[in-house]
């Protein structure tokens, strides 16, 4: 049987075009057929998780039933009760499968966990968010079918963008009028074509053609201070370019396909290389992930710390939470020294960034601000980010150990 990586090859796109055509015509005439949407969702899910990858498909089905049980159960419970410990227990249970999948390779010599499947992280983010917003009373009308559609929305299932239950529900329950939908269609198709350029031309060049050569050269140029060499510097920029074009390309496919289906899935990248500082970078890079961390880890932890007066100074609260937040993000990427160092690096970078912003505010007169400083800030941020991606890439693990 055929199996595909989502957006992996021309056949996938051809099937996508054929499957979406009736849906497009329906939306143009103001109709949304839930049955048809569900059928093509199942079709593409089977293409992704069926065939030789059937064990992943089974893992997905069990996982989904488990998370539906938790979110549904909690929504029913929350109508009349609101116990703190029970809420924490639900969150821990919702994260448990992902934690097992992430820790297993570290303790089992790289062996992948049996309960894992492509996209488990992204589904976990959606489930945990649903539980948290249910507790806050923001989600009042939890609906199992909507939740299933939200979790199994095939364009974004494998790697996001991470949508929010309420935002998705609002789009899913309505049909855009013709003018609005034509605008979405136009955008969606443009996104797909920009995605082709990113993923199949630029990421292919940087990642498949250039990167292996640079890696080989960097391995041969070891011996200097910390084994650093010019090819390694080249690798750093090449890896960063590949990471960006590959993931931004994928995200454009996912968002573009969503738009064609009349769902305005949020964008994942917003010109990240223009960021003048690290803080701004995280508002532009893998946005749905960083905002998820901001809203469901950073802000909630800060809220808790401040309410219980754990730290005297707000700046201490912010700094500690930055580091915790980014360390969690590092661990989420995987339990290896380089992912965790990457998280720590960004946590500390955010701390230093805030210190600098405070200093600048206090000494507004003496700190120059002009085109030159702006360009310098963008240059510095870009290079710091590329350096963090060098850590993230894991090549140092190969060169050093």
């Amino acid at each position, binding site marked *: 049987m055929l199996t595909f990586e989502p957006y992996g090859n021309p056949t996938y796109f051809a099937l996508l075009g054929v499957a979406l055509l009736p849906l497009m015509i329906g939306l143009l005439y103001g109709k949304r057929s839930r049955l048809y949407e569900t059928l093509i969702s199942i079709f593409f899910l089977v293409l992704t998780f069926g065939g030789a990858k059937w064990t992943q498909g089974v893992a997905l089905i069990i996982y989904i039933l488990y998370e539906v049980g938790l979110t549904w159960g909690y929504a029913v419970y929350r109508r009349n009760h609101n116990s703190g410990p029970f809420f924490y227990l639900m969150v821990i249970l919702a994260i448990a499968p992902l934690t097992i999948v992430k820790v297993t390779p570290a303790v089992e010599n790289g062996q992948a966990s049996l309960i894992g499947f492509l996209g488990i992280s992204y589904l976990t983010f959606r489930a945990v968010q649903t539980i948290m917003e249910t507790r806050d009373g923001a989600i009042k009308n939890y609906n199992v079918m909507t939740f299933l559609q939200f979790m199994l929305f095939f364009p974004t299932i494998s790697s996001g963008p991470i949508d929010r239950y309420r935002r998705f529900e609002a789009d899913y329950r309505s049909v855009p009028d013709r003018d609005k939908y034509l605008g979405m269609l136009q955008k969606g198709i443009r996104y797909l074509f920009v995605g082709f350029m990113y993923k199949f031309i630029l990421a292919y060049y940087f990642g498949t053609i250039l990167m292996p050569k640079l890696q080989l050269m960097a391995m041969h140029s070891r011996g200097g201070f910390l084994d650093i060499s010019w090819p390694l510097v080249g690798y750093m920029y090449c890896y960063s370019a590949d990471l960006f074009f590959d993931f931004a390309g994928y995200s454009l496919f996912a968002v573009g396909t969503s738009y064609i289906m009349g769902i305005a899935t949020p964008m994942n990248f917003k010109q990240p290389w223009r960021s003048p500082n690290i803080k701004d970078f995280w508002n532009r890079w893998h946005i749905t992930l960083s905002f998820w961390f901001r809203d469901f880890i950073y802000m909630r932890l800060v809220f808790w710390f*401040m309410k219980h007066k754990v730290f005297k100074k707000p700046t201490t609260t912010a700094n500690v939470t930055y580091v915790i937040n980014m360390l969690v993000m590092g661990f989420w990427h995987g339990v290896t020294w380089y992912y965790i160092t990457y998280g720590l690096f960004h946590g500390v970078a955010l701390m230093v960034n805030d210190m600098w912003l405070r200093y600048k505010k206090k000494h507004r007169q003496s700190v120059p601000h002009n085109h030159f400083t702006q360009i310098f800030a963008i240059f510095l941020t870009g290079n710091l980010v590329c350096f963090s991606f060098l850590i993230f890439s894991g090549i140092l693990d190969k060169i050093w150990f």
Partner: protein
Amino acid sequence: MDIKETVLNILNDLTGSDVSGAMDENLFDSGIMDSMASVQLLLSLQSELGVNVPVSEFERSEWDTPNKIIAKVESLA
């Protein structure tokens, strides 16, 4: 003291700058507010006005200018 004045006082204390001159300025774009300041704002609204806003309801685009914040608080008070 009315809501508008209280909110402006909270914002001035929080950000260290007088925002009353630019009521439609985007506080996040200009770097005056960030997530930390947002949480402090929510806590101050709770203690000074008794307005409870869970973090889930803090949709940044609805809270990004002094005018929007005042309107939001007035609707919740």
